[in-house]
């Protein structure tokens, strides 16, 4: 019976001194990131549009965006993102152009893995955020809403929780036992540590679940509801530096115009409401919204009025501390410059991650000199 040690979880104390500022457990972090995954591969070229480039119009006679909103340097924004225009004008929206990686994969599963584990060789199973953020006892590092996949926060030593929604999660966690034990069996210790993370998240969630709602109205869509839930957690002081939501349906192989416009509208409307709620709670300077997607789409439209899996694409960041503008160089659409029909990336996606690590959280950049931050924040 020697394994049955009913001691309190003692390992908590020595670690407490090592926790950096802003990562103390129990209170809302000063720097929060909201990741928005555009599932299916967003057509970057119809999101941030090189509207004065003849190559663009020639490659996409049937699906080119005609009434794009000019932003700067011959680049324009999809008109269905117009709800984000005020943020651009305030200087709180940054576009990072041509984000991707070398030898891109055109497989959804493989490429999203590359993005979320930040390993193009596919030899890493830990998410990139699991590596950037130190694991904490009695606190979670992130919450994934509407998905059972931890994605960028997965893998060994992950301190994140995934849930369809807070209500379902709280129902599931009630089966978990709440005692904490000190055990010498390493597999058992790991399991109990994970259990502790879940219980911590649940405890805090109950608080925010019973807390107040923002008075801002969110669009009545799956995406809008998830953003409303994130908002509720943030304004009620949930201790989590990362939230992740996703918007689905970007795999636009056929008849893409209406489908893509509709998605842009959801994206813009949801994030506008989120920005308003954060501003109202005086937290707009504490949040950073960043989009990502497994890949962009082929430069040329296909024969079904859609686009096939491609490579690099533009992404954007929003937040009160964001330095608005265009970053990176828009990749050339000249057919001679395309690689196998795809635009070639100018910004490695890990440069965006390095920005979050180093400039937003003031954490070490895991890629050091290999991938330097982009100065959008």
């Amino acid at each position, binding site marked *: *019976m020697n*394994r*049955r040690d009913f001691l309190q979880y003692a390992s908590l104390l020595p670690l407490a001194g090592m926790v950096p500022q802003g990562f103390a457990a129990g209170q809302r972090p000063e720097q929060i990131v909201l990741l928005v995954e555009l599932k299916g591969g967003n057509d970057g070229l119809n999101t941030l549009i090189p509207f004065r480039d003849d190559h663009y119009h020639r490659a996409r006679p049937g699906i080119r965006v005609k009434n794009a909103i000019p932003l700067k340097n011959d680049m324009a924004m999809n008109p269905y993102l117009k709800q984000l225009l005020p943020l651009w004008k305030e200087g709180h929206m940054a576009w990072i152009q041509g984000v991707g990686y070398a030898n891109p994969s055109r*497989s959804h*599963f*493989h490429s999203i*893995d590359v993005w979320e584990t930040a390993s193009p060789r*596919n*030899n890493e*199973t830990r998410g990139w955020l699991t590596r950037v953020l130190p694991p904490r006892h009695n606190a*979670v590092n992130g919450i994934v809403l509407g998905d*059972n*996949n*931890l994605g960028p926060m*997965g*893998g*060994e030593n*992950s*301190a*994140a*929780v*995934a849930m369809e929604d807070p209500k379902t*999660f709280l129902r*599931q*966690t009630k*089966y*978990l*036992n709440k*005692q904490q*034990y000190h*055990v010498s*069996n*390493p*597999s*058992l210790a*790991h*399991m*109990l540590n*994970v*259990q502790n*993370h*879940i219980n911590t*998240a649940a405890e805090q969630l109950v608080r925010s679940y019973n807390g107040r709602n923002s008075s801002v109205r969110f669009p009545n869509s799956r995406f809008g509801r998830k953003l409303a839930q994130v908002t509720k957690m943030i304004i009620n002081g949930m201790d989590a530096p990362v939230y992740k939501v996703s918007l689905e349906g970007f795999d636009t*192989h*056929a008849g893409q115009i209406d489908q893509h416009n509709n998605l842009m509208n959801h994206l813009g409307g949801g994030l506008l409401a989120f920005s308003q709620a954060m501003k109202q709670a005086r937290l707009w300077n504490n949040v950073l919204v960043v989009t990502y997607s497994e890949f962009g789409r082929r430069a040329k439209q*296909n*024969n*079904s009025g*859609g686009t096939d899996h491609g490579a690099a694409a533009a992404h954007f960041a929003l937040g009160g501390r964001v330095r608005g503008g265009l970053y990176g160089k828009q990749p050339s659409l000249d057919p001679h410059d395309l690689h196998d029909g795809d635009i070639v990336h100018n910004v490695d996606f890990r440069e965006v991650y390095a920005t979050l690590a180093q400039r937003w959280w003031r954490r070490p950049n895991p890629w050091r000199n290999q991938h330097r931050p982009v100065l959008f924040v």
Partner: protein
Amino acid sequence: MVRLNFSDTRHLVARTSLGAEWGGLKGLEGKSRAEAVNILLKPAPMDTPPLPRLTPWSNVDRMRKKNGLGKKRAHKMMKDEGERLKRWWMTHLLHTKAPVNEHMTLFWHNHFTSSLEKVEQPKLIYLQNQLLRKHAIGNFRALIHAIARDPAMLIYLDGSNNVKGSPNENFARELMELFTLGRGHYSEADIKAAALAFTGWGVDRNRGTFRYNPAEHDDRRISFMGRNGSFTGDQIIDIILEKPRVGEHIAEKFWKEFVSDNHPDPRVIRQWGAVFRKSNYNIKALLSEILNSDAFWDEKYRGTLTKSPIDLVVGTLRTLPYPKLSAKELAHISQLLGQDLFDPPTVKGWDGGKAWIDTQTLLVRTSLLNKLTRHSRASGRVQAYLPKATGNDVVDWLLPMPPLLPLPKTPGKLRMVRALILDPAFQLK
């Protein structure tokens, strides 16, 4: 001679089989280690359930080459058939009469990985699975020669794109890094040379068979691991198998699978590797050596391995007659638990061990076990199945260590078994 007590039999069976039926354990109680291992490794019928209908690739190919819509439909069809194949394997795992062989089939699936996601053709993945099953406790030399010409593997590791003038090193690299030697025991030049030797090995996709095209084979003289000549792929494999390191590499993987997450003692690995090599890579000989070793039975390693999703899902249902969930639901649960059969996450397969447990999977594990052990129409059946035994025997049967949580105070066999299954210790083996 050491005679196995009841707890020993659980240790042996839980780590090598799929679940641990009461009767099976009782049959091994009191035997010597060697006797018990012999019984366990005795051949058993490996018949698999009827295969779901899988559309011939030529039809699929015609469909996807037609137009965009056809391509989309073909993709959907392959995805659906892939899901059916996963259910097929799940059904077999639940019902097979050769659980040790099946445990090893799953082990080799995690060693010679291939995924539906990349290969796309469920039929080829099925053929690979049958190949792994056939050799699961057979001969590793035969297995690796067969895997090198397995159509699914040739697609998964791009061997079919490896042709004269345009070599693809993917298979050659993994052959040495993952399948046989491990990192640090070959050079980049060896990879380049081996890739040339395998040029011309490809797949007839319509027939789903191996095809050697001499016109695509680059037969120039190469230097491989200190040997010079014009080699075939088979000769490359045989040269690799001469290295003592191969036996040790496989022994290390077996250590992790059967003994512990901790680093092994190098002396133990050298010994097991030598036994394996001397037996001409007889997998049964290696298994038998390990299962008879003091390391395997060492108290300090008992109950330190985390059950894989298949151990948990299939093992529990093979151990106790709880309501059988549909194969579809089980395949889905296994996927949620991080072990999506036929779709390992990377070419290295599942990390396993502690990595099986994260915040997401622990909740699914707990919910599943709660659901299974809840009072239901099946409770009477479970009650009737439970042996007349002492509480200690039941603990020894279901857990590798004393329960962490207090046991229920109200008596009742069902309640007791439910408490043991919901105990954190049940997640270990």
